[in-house]
C-alpha cells in the first residue's frame, strides 16, 4: 500500500473530528479543516514513528509537514531515505 493511501486510511479511521470528508484528496488541508487538532497530531506522530521507524525531532513538528497527506508522505519518505 502506498504511503498516501495508508495515511488516508489512518486519518479516516482514527481522526477525532466529525468533519472529515469521505473522499478528500492528497492535498486537502488537514490543518485549516481542523482534522489535525492537538491530540490527533500527537497520535499521528506516534503512529508514523512506529509504522515507518522514522523520528520526528522538535523542529519537525511544524505545520508545513502536516498540511496535507502529500506533505506528511514527503516528510516520511525524506526521513526514510535519510537513514
Amino acid at each position, binding site marked *: 500500500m502506498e504511503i498516501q493511501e495508508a495515511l488516508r486510511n489512518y486519518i479516516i479511521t482514527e481522526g*477525532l473530528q*466529525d468533519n472529515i470528508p469521505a473522499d478528500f484528496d492528497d492535498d486537502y488541508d488537514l490543518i485549516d479543516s481542523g482534522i489535525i487538532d*492537538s*491530540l490527533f497530531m500527537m497520535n499521528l506522530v*506516534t503512529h508514523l514513528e*512506529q509504522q515507518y521507524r522514522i523520528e520526528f*525531532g522538535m523542529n519537525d*513538528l*511544524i505545520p508545513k509537514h*502536516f498540511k496535507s497527506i502529500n506533505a506528511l508522505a514527503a516528510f516520511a519518505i525524506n526521513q526514510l531515505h535519510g537513514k
Partner: protein
Amino acid sequence: MNQAKLNLAECFFHKAEQQPEHPLILGQETANSTSYAEFRAEIQALAQQLKAAGIKLGDNIGIHYPSGGHYIAFVYAVWVCNACVTPLPLELTPAEKQQIFEYVHMDAVISHTRMMAQVSANTQGESIPLLHQAIFTKAKSFCTPPAELANVNPAFIRFTSGTTGNAKGVVLSHEAIYERIHAANNVLNISEQDRILWLLSMDYHFAVSIVAYLTFGASIILPKNSFGITLLNAANNHKATFIYGSPTHYMLMVQDDTGVELPNSLRVAIVTTTALSADAADAFHQRFKRVLNETYGIIELGLPAINISQARDKQGSVGKITPDYELRLEMIDGHEYGEITVRSKGMLDAYYSPWRSRETILAEQGGWFHTGDLGKLDADGFLYIVGRSKEMISVGGMKFFPEEVETILEKHPAIAEAAVFSAKDRQWGEPAQAHLVLTTGVECPSDHELRSYCKQYLATHKVPSRFIWVEQLAYTASGKKIRNPNKLHHLN
C-alpha cells in the same frame, strides 16, 4: 433539616449571573467567543436532555468526548443532574476502556457519535442523541458501586491504573474540589481579568484548573492545534494572561522560528504533567525572556506547591507550599532530603476500589498523606523534588505508569520479564522503551509483532518505541525492579 450539598455547577451559575456577557470560551480567532450566559444556557439545555434521558441523583456517567468547550458543558450538565463523572480518555484502546468499566460502576455513557463503537461493548439499550454529535446510552453493569460513595457527594471518579498494577479510582467530592481550587487561587489569583491558554487533555486535567477558571470568572482560550505558531497566535489574539501546559507545549513554542513573541499581558506560564528539564527551561527563557513556573500536582491532593517566582535562581523548584497545605518532610538519615508528606482539606475523599476513605488513608499513614516522592527545601522555603517514587511516563501530557505496559508485555508468551522506562533523550516527549527478557526456548518475536500485540491492549502513546532484549533485569536487594537502563547488560 438537611443542608443543601455543595454543587460546583451552582458556583458557575452564580458567576454567570454576575458577568453574563463576559467571554468564557475563546476560540483560535478573536471573533470566536462564547459568553458566560451562552455557556450557562448550553449547560442547562444539556442537563434537560440528560434528565429526560434518565440521569438521576447519585448516578455515575462516563464521558467519552474530545476535550473542548462541549466537554466542559457535558461535565457541568451531569453535575446539574446531581450525578458524578468518570472520564473515559479517547486515546485509550477499547480494552483499556473496558478495564475502567470493570472497576468503576457507570450508569450511562455520553460519547461522541464518531467514537461510540469503542465503548459499545459496555453499553446497552437505546441510544439517545444529544446536542453536539453526542449520544447517551445506558452502561452495562460489571460491578456494584461502593455503598460509601453516596455519602461523599462525588463530582469525579478518576480511574488510575495505580503503581502496583492494582487499579484505584480516585473519588473527588464537590467539596474537595472547592477546597483545592480556593487553595490554589490563594497563590494564582485567577479572576475575570484572566485569559487562560489551555493546552491539556481535560480527561486528566479539570478539577483544579477548568473548575477554577469557571468559578473565578476567567476566560479559556482553546487553540486549534498544538503547533508552536498556533499557540503563539492564539495567545496574542486574545492577550493571554496565563498558560497551562506541559513541557512539550512550551518546547513547541520555543522551536517556532517566525519571531512571534508571547504577549506582554502574560503573567504566569505554568508547567505541569512532568518535571521540566533545565535545558527546556533555559531554551524557553532564551527565546521568550520569561521563566516557566513549575507546580507539584497530585491527583490525590491538588496543587500543594506552585512556583510563581520569576527569579531564575528558583528555576527547578516547584515553589513554596500553598498556604492551605501543610508539608512535612520525613528526613532520611544522612541526607538533606526526605519523603514529602502533606495534609490539607482538599485531599481525595477516597480510593474507589477497594474503598479506602480519606480518614482510613490518613489513619494508616499517621495523619499525613505520603506522596512517596523525595524533596528538599531551600532557605526561602522553596520545594525541590529530588526523586519521584512513581516512575510515571508522560508523552505530550498524557501520563501512564510503566507497570501498566509491563503487565501487558509479560503476558506475551515470548517475554519472561519486562522493564519499561522513559527515554528522556528528546525534548518533546518521553516515549517509552522496554527492556525484555526472552522466555527460555521460545523464538524471539520481531519488533513489528510486539508492536501489533501491544496495540491491541494499549493506547498508542503507551506502546514502547524501542524493544531491547537483555539477559536479565536488575533488582534492588528488596526485590524492586530497577528500571535505570545503565544497570543492565545487553545481549550484544
